[in-house]
């Protein structure tokens, strides 16, 4: 049994941490980035690529330098700490996961992603499919030697700035059939998109497409497998991101308890507040433990992988709510302001529960995978 990181991973952690600390100094910097045209900084994205942060998410088989559960967790925990909004999840992780899991992996495209030159978004969610892996209403059909798709996709992270989009669409069967789904690669310039910011600062888009040309990446069992793998990988990354956010929320709150004085003393001297801080600390250690377990089994068979990821993501949902709400409550009024950083951390932490399956979804999936 070994709970420590290897030397290589420690180095990765230190390098990425230093980079984020320098480039993402404070919440103002984040605001500047999200006010840019694409909702993030192209310059920062390119620097991330030069430093090997994107390749840290991708296996050496496809030209990356990492891609293990631990690599993903290390990087995303640091993303959480800095509250960075660049397309690490959409392009760096979800799309590259699918492009590398198909029968003929798109290594060239993956390399362009690694180089920071290509952005690919993964568009699976629809307005009413909640978190389901196989609930797909968008349609695909084969016509004149070409695949075409029509329908709409929702909440597509970086769906406006992506060069290409991976879209799930139904080739045959009923709306919730497990079989009959295809994954398609399309050029984004064929798609109408309506872009907007999410409440936690990300750029997202609603996509509409009507009989546009698409390249089939995979279908049926493999397509479903890819969607599940992408969603699981995303859930692991978001869980690790949440650990980083929780730690910052805790540290900021503790710091504030020392400086804020009421009734002639620092509010941190009150026992009722100290006990709540202990509860937070304890639950953060629980989440950290669950994420460590999920990262360590990421490369095993899919049912162990998904079961442990679901355990982590469920706990993240439950504990995230506790940490976000308590951080705001213990800060008091100041946490209600846009200017102070804790609110932005709290918002991201809460919204993480609305991505890649919430606490209820992952609890139910955990149940299902435990009973097998």
């Amino acid at each position, binding site marked *: 049994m*070994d*709970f420590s990181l290897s030397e290589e991973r420690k180095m990765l952690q230190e390098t990425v941490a230093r980079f984020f600390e320098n480039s993402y100094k404070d919440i103002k910097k984040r605001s500047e980035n999200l006010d840019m045209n694409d909702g993030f900084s192209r310059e920062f994205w390119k620097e991330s690529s030069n430093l090997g942060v994107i390749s840290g998410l991708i296996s050496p088989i496809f030209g990356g330098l990492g891609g293990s559960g631990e690599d993903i967790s290390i990087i995303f925990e640091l993303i959480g700490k800095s509250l960075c909004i660049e397309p690490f999840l959409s392009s760096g992780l979800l799309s590259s996961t699918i492009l590398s899991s198909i029968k003929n992996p798109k290594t060239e495209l993956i390399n362009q992603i690694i180089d920071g030159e290509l952005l690919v978004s993964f568009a699976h969610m629809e307005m009413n499919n909640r978190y389901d892996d196989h609930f797909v209403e968008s349609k695909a059909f084969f016509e004149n030697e070409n695949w075409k798709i029509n329908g709409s996709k929702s909440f597509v992270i970086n769906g406006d700035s992506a060069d290409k989009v991976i879209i799930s669409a139904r080739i045959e069967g009923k709306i919730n059939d497990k079989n009959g789904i295809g994954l398609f690669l399309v050029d984004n310039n064929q798609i109408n998109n309506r872009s907007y910011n999410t409440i936690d600062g990300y750029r997202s888009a609603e996509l509409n497409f009507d009989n546009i040309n698409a390249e089939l990446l995979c279908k049926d069992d493999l397509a479903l497998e890819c969607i599940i793998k992408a969603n699981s990988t995303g859930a692991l990354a978001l869980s690790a991101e949440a650990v980083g956010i929780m730690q910052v929320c805790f540290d900021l709150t*503790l710091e504030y308890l020392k400086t804020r004085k009421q009734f002639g003393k620092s509010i941190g001297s009150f026992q009722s507040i100290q006990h709540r801080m*202990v509860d937070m600390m304890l639950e953060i250690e629980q989440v*950290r433990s669950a994420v460590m377990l999920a990262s360590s089994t990421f490369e095993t068979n899919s049912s162990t992988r998904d079961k442990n990821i679901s355990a982590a993501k469920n*706990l993240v949902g439950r504990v995230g709510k506790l940490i976000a709400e308590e951080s705001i409550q213990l800060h008091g009024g100041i946490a209600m302001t846009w200017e102070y950083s804790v609110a932005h951390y709290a918002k991201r932490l809460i919204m993480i529960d609305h991505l890649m399956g919430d606490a209820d979804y992952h*609890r139910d999936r955990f149940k299902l995978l435990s009973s097998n």
Partner: protein
Amino acid sequence: MNFEYSKKEEKFRIEVRNWLKETLPKYLSEKVRKYQRLTKEDYELFMNNLSKKGWIAWHWPEEYGGTGWNAIEKHIFEEEIVKASAPRIVPFGVNMLGPVLIEFGSEEQKNYYLPRILNNEDWWAQGYSEPGAGSDLASLKTTAINKGDHYLVNGQKTWTTLGHHADKIFCLVKTDLNVKPQLGISFLLIDMYSPGVEVKPIITLDGEHEVNEVWFTDVKVPKKNLVGKENEGWTYAKYLLTFERTGIAGVPNSKSALNHLKMVSRKSMKNGKPLIEDPMFSSEVAELEIDLLAMEIFNLRTVSAATEGKAPGMESSLLKIKGTLVRQKTTELLRKALGPQALPYLPEQFDEGWNEMPIGPEYAGPIAKQYFNMRKISIYGGSNEIQKNIVAKASFGL
């Protein structure tokens, strides 16, 4: 990072498991499984077996008769004991007093008491709590007046677990009343057969006799029974309380309780279907299982840090809090799982040899009783509120 047990550790687990299979009598594990009352002889039988094997003092340094196991091996050992449904190892002599004597006892005390602990010759009890000194332990009132060659002890201890079996008791007593409470406490070893010692049972809310009051009236205690220095007992007491305990989270107990819960909720019916198929109930079970899974890793992280010589500080307190909450939650869900079957209370069911028809399924009998009994775990060993004070003080810098 790698959370698998090594080959060597797995081999060790098999060794412990096989040994338990060979030496633990069926009737005894059956009693433990059914929550039947254990006699003094039941505890002693298991502990004598451990003594013979050389495993009784698994926390001690090797030169005093300990096993030399690292924290992971200790953890495996504790896990296997629970899995085998063995009686618990009565901790007062071997886990509590032993380490204090090794650290602070005189050569004479070590030479006399340690071998006796290793051979289970004395049944020790713990004399800490008093009616007026629970969480505020230093406010204890039992006095030991220096009378030259002996102390004269007067006062009352309470919550003395299995004190009715005890031959000896280690006590915190006041030897100086004129200083700050913490500075006037001494650590005294008292023979339970001394004139003036009286044990009175306390019957707990589940109807059981496990804890006692111990009264001291003009009890003469020889000077040589003082551990360490007079008035420095608080240091020793704290040492005992923070003594490395890998098992503080009770992970093995909660794991076996969770399995039991799943079994019961497969047999309990709701609307003609097994309760485990009820989405609300199974969700509660699943989230409990997730909490336990996370805690197991948290515990192993702490255990593993201990093998590298890092003393668990606040982690022990955090694990104590979470461990008790998880364990209590399993007893709560077990109780809920039974529905009205939780109502019947047949105290005689827990006597050895009882073989009448139970009311409802056999497993139902102890569940409500066990639920009430388990309320104690967030109170004893430093209540969860005290643990929170400890963590806040140690790591927040507030």
